[in-house]
């Protein structure tokens, strides 16, 4: 039984990665996918009862992501934090490219709105599937989607002007 399921799990990996990349920083995204796959295997006994594999897998990723945000330091705590130099952060891209701008704007959305927006946009899930994946009522899906889209629109409208100023300079 599991022999048949294994390739099936592999087939979900690109989409799980895409969602993870959009949801978390690129350095955390593959860890999130890896943890999701581990968790899915740990719960492999439940697979026969899972009706919607996608909602189930993305739901696992959602839970892990929320957990990771709650205690972000634990899994990567270094041995001698006090002795380590500050890791320099790469300067923000200022190319004015629309897509980079979109990424930046997306990162400014609250996690709840971002999740709904991404599942609807990237996975093109139905609203009911989003509700099932995130374990929230349909009404909450709609209000988060509405607020997330409007917020993104405002952010991008603001950014468009900023980019324009850069070009002039």
């Amino acid at each position, binding site marked *: 039984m599991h*022999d048949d399921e294994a390739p099936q799990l592999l087939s979900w990996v*690109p989409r799980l990665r895409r969602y993870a990349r959009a949801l978390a920083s690129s350095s955390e995204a593959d860890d999130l996918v890896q943890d999701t796959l*581990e968790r899915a295997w740990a719960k492999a006994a439940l697979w026969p009862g899972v009706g919607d594999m996608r909602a189930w897998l993305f739901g696992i990723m959602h839970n892990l992501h929320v957990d990771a945000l709650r205690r972000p330091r*634990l899994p990567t705590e270094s*041995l001698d934090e006090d002795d380590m130099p500050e890791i320099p952060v790469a300067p923000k891209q200022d190319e004015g490219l629309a897509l980079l701008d979109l990424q930046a704007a997306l990162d400014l959305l609250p996690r709840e709105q971002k999740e709904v927006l*991404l599942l609807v946009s990237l996975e093109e899930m139905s609203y009911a599937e989003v509700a099932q994946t995130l374990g929230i009522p349909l009404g909450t899906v*709609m209000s988060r989607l509405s607020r997330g889209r409007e917020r993104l629109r405002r952010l991008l409208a603001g950014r468009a002007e900023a980019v324009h100023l850069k070009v002039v300079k």
Partner: protein
Amino acid sequence: MKPSPITEAELHALVDAQLAPERQREVEAWLAEHPEEAQRLADYRTHKRALQMLFKPVLDEAVPLSLQRAAQPRRPWHLQRMAAGFALALVSGAAGWVLHAQLAAPDLSALLAQQHAQQQEEPAFARRAAVAHAVYSPELRRPVEVDAAHEDQLVAWLSKRMGSPMKPPHLQAQGYALEGGRLLPGGQGPVAQFMYRDEAGSRLTLYVTHETGAAAAASRSASQPDLAFRFAREGAVNVFYWVDGPFGYALSAEADRATLARVSSEVYRQLAAR
């Protein structure tokens, strides 16, 4: 029949093509008379397409090997379990005998000394285990990377990195409480270290490694059973170690040999029971 008022949710449903065709026509007719709303929805559509474009390349990226492995266990789960069970059943006869001999021996240290003499040289992993013990056990603030309060995370993390299930044995009955664990670099790959402490605060570490190929081959060529407890001493640290299948285990403490022998047999018993 007059169309019912149009809701915000329906406007989004239009963007996402989740409206019934009939309702879609009604909403579109309404939008024709509300250009501002129509523009807002046009923006949402644009952003949706832009998001899809932004992340589409991820779908075409090669899946890293680590994720391929995680998606597809090397062997089916149940067979892996079964194979492990057979292996343990095969060795536990011999192991039980060795253990019994050791524990019943009136002069344990003589027996251990004899074993010590039989072996050519302690394997590298035993020395590394002793050094790791010496380095981390005096640590007051951060003896472990993940503490025992998060044992499930510790197990998941170490299992993932080691590529095999890693569960720390429970040694309360032997007077040692689990403090947590960490991942260490071994000679060729990752190594797991579990740390315990007794009531007096002295620490004991269990070191688990894959890198026992040479040691296992050496003990076979010496026509010894793979599974035998051995003893080594590195400075003030006493180490009890053994090789079991693909794994090398080393138990290190500044405790005496008898204590280590007692704890080692319990560690082995729990690992074999899995």
